[in-house]
Every structure is written in C-alpha cells, then in structure tokens.
C-alpha cells in the first residue's frame, strides 16, 4: 500500500538548535498517529514542515507519492492536508457561525466571490451538520473572542475538518483544556471524523489520551524519532520512559 504521507530525511535547525534530524516516517491511510515528546523535541516543527509553514533544510515530504516539500500552506491544504493549532487560530471578531461558514465557502471555491452572500441555504445545511457533529450549536452566534478555551479548540479542529482533508494534523488538541474536558473533547473530535476515512496525526502530552486514541505512536527527542510503533510498545520503551514520559507507561 502507498503511504499517504512519507517524509524522507527531514532536517531543520534554528541556529544551534536541531529541531528535525533525519526524520523519515511513512503513514498509512486511516492511521491515527500520536506524536509525543517534551517541549522542543520537534513535534510541532514536524507538523509545520508537513503543512508548509516551514521549509526543511533538507529532505522531502511526499503526499500520496507526490512531492509537496516547501509548498505554501494554502497549496498544501488544496492537496488535502489540514491542521489545527496548539493556540487556536480563529477569526476572533467573527461569530462561530461565520468562522465555519468561511471555511465551508472556501471549500466550495466561493472564496473570491464578491456577489455570493456568506450565508446561503446550502452552506447553512452543511453548517448545521458540522455544529451537530462538534456539539457547537449552543455557541453558534457567539463571537469567538468570548468563547471558552475548550470550545475554541473544538472550533479550530472543526475548521480543519471542514476542509475534508485526507490528512489531519492536530497540534495538542487538549492543551489548555480543563482535565475533566479532555476525554470528552477527544471523543467529540474522533467521533466527528469517524466516517471520513481521514488519517490523523495528533501531538499530545497526556499519555492516557495517546494510549486511548492512537493506534501508532511516534516519540520525539531532540529532533529525532526515538521510538515508533504500537502505543503499548512505545510507552514502555526504556528511552521513551527516560526522555519523554518520565517513567509513566
């Protein structure tokens, strides 16, 4: 089977800091991949390179076998890659409805229309479905700036999912979210993409969440991948316990 995403020998340094050192990974379609590692280990750099936010110093990124290395984020999105952010990147002065309507409109290639209204019956029907899947209906008319952190996280993921990506990258979807909301939030996200055949890579610090939602785990340390495999195997790996989890399996 052709890998959906393949990275070959990615290198990236910021001055003396090595953020990616020979990162070679192949991700099969439909996988749910957890990325773990301490702060500065290179997880977000990896996501930023794959999504075009950063250009690697060396190496290649292949999507469905096509080289997408160094393409701009908007081109990578058109190729089928979407992402959410550690700090949600939303249109804070617009309402939740407007945020999602824009995402839907761009998907429908209406982004450059000065004539088509932002609200249309077709888009409103799609919006209703999205609000239902992400349980965002109670907040739909609120300005994003006043939404709680957990809801903003959901909106950020919903914006990415709206693009119907082949590959979805979630950068710390539960960071900054109250402990009691973490599992319900991940449940909502995973349920929302359940029937979409989307391949998911998510960065996570909570090993319980990684163990529950990932079917494969990559452990990063100092810009390198130090372990790759099934969650139980990776989390019990000696190096991972020493450098990443601090003994938590």
């Amino acid at each position: 089977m052709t890998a959906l995403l393949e990275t070959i020998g990615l290198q990236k340094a910021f001055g003396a800091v090595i953020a990616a050192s020979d990162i070679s990974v192949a991700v099969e379609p439909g996988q749910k991949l957890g990325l773990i590692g301490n702060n500065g280990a290179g997880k977000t750099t990896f996501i930023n390179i794959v999504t075009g936010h950063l250009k690697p110093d060396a190496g290649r990124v292949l999507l469905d076998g096509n080289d997408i290395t160094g393409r701009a984020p908007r081109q990578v999105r058109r190729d089928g890659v979407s992402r959410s952010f550690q700090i949600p990147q939303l249109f804070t002065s617009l309402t939740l409805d407007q945020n999602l309507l824009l995402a839907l409109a761009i998907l429908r290639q209406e982004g450059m229309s000065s004539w088509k209204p932002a609200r249309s019956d077709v888009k409103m029907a799609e919006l209703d479905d999205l609000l239902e899947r992400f349980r965002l209906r109670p907040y739909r008319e609120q300005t994003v700036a006043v939404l709680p952190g957990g809801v903003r996280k959901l909106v950020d993921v919903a914006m990415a999912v709206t693009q119907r990506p082949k590959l979805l990258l979630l950068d710390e979807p539960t960071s900054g979210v109250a402990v009691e909301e973490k599992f319900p939030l991940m449940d909502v996200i995973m349920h929302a993409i359940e029937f979409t055949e989307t391949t998911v890579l998510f960065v996570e610090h909570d090993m319980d969440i990684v163990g529950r939602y990932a079917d494969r785990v990559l452990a990063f340390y100092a810009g390198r991948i130090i372990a790759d495999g099934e969650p139980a195997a990776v989390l019990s790996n000696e190096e991972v316990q020493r450098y990443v989890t601090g003994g938590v399996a």
Partner: protein
Amino acid sequence: MTGVIGTLVAAVIAYAVLVLAGYLAPDWLVLVATLAFTKGLVALGIVALMRGGLVSFGQGTFYCAGAYAAGLAMRSFGIGDAALLVALGAIAGLILGGIIAPLLAGYRGIFFATLTLALSMIVYGILNKTYSLGGSDGLNLHAPSFFGYRPAGSENAGYALFLFTGLIMVIAATLCRIHFNSVRGLLSHAARDNEIRVEYLGASVRWINSVNFIIAAVLGGVGGALSALSLGHIDPDFAFWTTSGEFVFLAILSGYVSVTAVFVAAILVELLRSYSSQYFPNTWQGVLGIFLLLIILFLPGGLGSLALRLRPKGPEPAPSPAENLK
C-alpha cells in the same frame, strides 16, 4: 439573495430621498453635499482596505489620477460627458491600482501606510514640475454635460451634478455593501483577524489585499474625477499628503461597519469645515482635530458602530464546555 435584494431596495429609496433633499436644499448645501459625496467615495475605498486590516495614507494618488484623467480627457479630447469622464477616472484608478497593488501586497501596518504616502508624494512632486499638465497651477475645467443633457444656469448645473454624484455614490455604496456581505468581503474581515488561518483554509491573503487595494484605487479615481467636475479645477494638491490625510480622517470617523456612515461622516466634516472656517478662520483645523479626538474617545468604532449599539443584545449565555460535552 434576500440580502442583496434588500440592499438594492434600500439603494433605490436612498436615491429617491437624495433627489428630493437636493431639490429642497439651498444651493450652498447642494454644493457642500456634492463635494462631501466625492470625498466619501475615496474614503469608502479606505474603508474597504480597513476591513482587511490595512490603512492607506496615499489615496490622494488615485484621487489625483482620476481627476487628471478626467481633466485631460476634457481639455485634450473634448470629452464633456460626466459619465465618460468618471469612467475614465475609474479606469485610471484601476490601471494605477493594478500596477501598485502587487508591489504593496506583502506590506502591513505602518510600512504599508508609509509606502502609499510616499507614492502619493512622488505623484505630487512630478505633477508640480510637469508644466504641460499645468504645473503647480493645475488646469481649469468647464461644466460637464450629463448623458447629452447640458443644464442651463449654475443652479441647474449644480443640482444636476449633485444628482449625478449622488447616483454614483449610491451605486458604489450598494456594490460595496453587497461585497462586504459576500464571502470575499467576510474573508477580508477574517484576514484582518488571522492571516495564518486564512492561508491554512486555502485562500491567499496577498490576493485578498490586492483586490481590496484595487477596489480602493477605483473608488479613489471615481472620487477624483467627480471632484474635478465639482470644483472645475485640478492641481497637484489632489495628491498632497494632507488630502490623503483627510480621507483617512473620514474613514476613521465613519468606522468600517457601515457604508452609509462614510457619507454621513463626509457631510458632517464638510459642514463642520464650512462653519468652523467661517466662525474660526484661523483655528478651524483645531476644531476638526477636537472633533476627531472626541470620536476616537467616545466612539472608537466610528459613527457606523452606533448602528451596532442599537442592535438587540447577543445570544443567551451558552453552557460550559464540560456540561455541553457530556
């Protein structure tokens, strides 16, 4: 489409009110309103830019280009019809905006504002030294005709120009309202909030800003051509930085929420200028400054934000995320 139809109906009503108001108003007020509309058109362009998070301090460039395009067409080619002259002004703005937009699309904030200002001052300097275009004295223009009709007498000519300017203003305001409510209009607003997310949704912020810049340039050209016809004279001061500053003043005063507010602000400022220059001949600029200061302090969103304050309060408080995710 209901929104578009509603906007079109409102435009027809607004124009009917203008026709009646112009007929009843004294001549001096008709002239003041005509000038206000021409400047409001340029400020409307800045509002289109502001919605995308950019402010141009050099709209005098396009205002001047529109005015000179109309003036030269009248003097060199004998074109006397207002509609044709305004179309030429729009084309001048379009061409100039189309050339400059890609060069400035990568700049933001003070860099963008300063570069636009610098361009306008280059145009000002060139025109001052171009004697074939009248140099610093500029050029005089005669009164235009309107679709073949040439009004007799200065009163009729003033009213005809008011009606024509009002028509252009209503058309421009209507198109801008439709544009602001459209996907692209909302996308501009979104780019102001978060360029990263716009790019990650698959749209180009450079392209959005370029199109907004060209819209502003065309409106600047139209406003310039109409000003030239209203004043009967053009000179390099059309591109001077204080002229551009006046348009920014109007845009800040109106805010970027309402297109109607732009023209209300323009009329208010023209009236304020007329009265204050009469009663405070040496300090009227100070009066304008105090007026702007009061607006920034007490109405930071501009006159248009008054409409938002009158709207019903927002939705009921939503449940907490934990409660909602259960």
